[in-house]
């Protein structure tokens, strides 16, 4: 009964090879996504080249769920530009428009005041205690382009994490059970 043992061995080795191939292709997908993301970070000069609009403070221009493409160049910050910034101590970035600029003669540093188009008052209420202006290091990038509705996927996954787990579970199941 040697040939039964032989066929059993060959079946096992095919399965292992298939499993390894699938694992490698999954790894390739994940790493190429990472390469694209890091490459975008380099090209746009911003830590976060794409952000999702989370609030309605810039309506009717940007609605909740739109995504913004950011770019950060060495050009000075000027009034009217839409900037994305972080307040010290808060992790959620805010997308608002610059309404006041004071640029120093000697150092070129700027003091910047922002306001959401749909808000009544400026952002001083949002800044840290005692902070009157933003400086350049608070600003992550300027919005240069946008796509509507695409960001809803991220919002849903953040606010209802159960959907994230379901999606990842389903994807994992698909990878394991697909025949090639």
């Amino acid at each position, binding site marked *: 009964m040697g040939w039964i043992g032989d066929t059993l061995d060959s079946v096992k080795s095919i399965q292992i090879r298939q499993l390894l191939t699938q694992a490698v292709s999954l790894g390739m997908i994940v790493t190429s996504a990472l390469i694209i993301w890091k490459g975008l970070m380099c090209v746009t000069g911003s830590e976060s080249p794409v952000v999702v609009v989370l609030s309605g403070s810039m309506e009717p221009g940007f609605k909740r769920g739109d995504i913004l493409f950011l770019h950060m160049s060495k050009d000075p910050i000027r009034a009217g530009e839409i900037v994305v910034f972080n307040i010290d101590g808060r992790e959620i970035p805010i997308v608002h428009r610059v309404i006041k600029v004071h640029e*120093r003669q000697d150092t070129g540093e700027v003091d910047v005041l922002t306001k959401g188009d749909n808000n009544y008052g400026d952002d001083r209420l949002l800044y840290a205690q005692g902070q009157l202006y933003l400086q350049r290091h608070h600003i992550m990038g300027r919005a240069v382009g946008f796509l509507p509705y695409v960001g809803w996927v991220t919002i849903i996954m953040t606010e209802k994490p159960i959907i994230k787990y379901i999606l990842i579970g389903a994807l994992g199941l698909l990878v394991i059970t697909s025949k090639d």
Partner: protein
Amino acid sequence: MHSFGYRLNGLLTFSLTILTIMCAIASLSDNLNTPSPSAEIQIININRFQKQPQGNDEVSLTMNISADLQSLFTWNTKQLFIFVAAEYETPKNSLNQVSLWDAIIIAKEHAKFWIHTSNKYRFVDQGNNLRGKEFNLTLHWHVMPKTGKMFADKIVLTGYSFPEEYR
């Protein structure tokens, strides 16, 4: 190879690619537009010109703003955000820009307008440098598209100045 799952996957990928290409073309079509905007701003009155307790100058003024921005609208334009800013130089700051008034224009018909208004936002300097100072009034516009690249430009109007004394 022809199961439901594969066909759905193929369909989704194809439609997403087509949508992305359409958005890009829509954005590129904005470059074909050659705008020719015009604007005029008149300062009717300087209502208040005082130094605040903290030491910063504050101005309140009334202006007439008239503009024709209809040529900026294309089929891919969602709205036009316009604002009037005062720009001036001080010994400490090489550039100061203070936004005085802004508006959102959604329809092309409203892009030709005339308005008599006082400044929407407080005009406060960083310091007390405004007496007798010359400044420019710039009308900026930001075109926000339905999809794609946003662009902005401005018209600079020169020749305005503050009074020599507080009032």
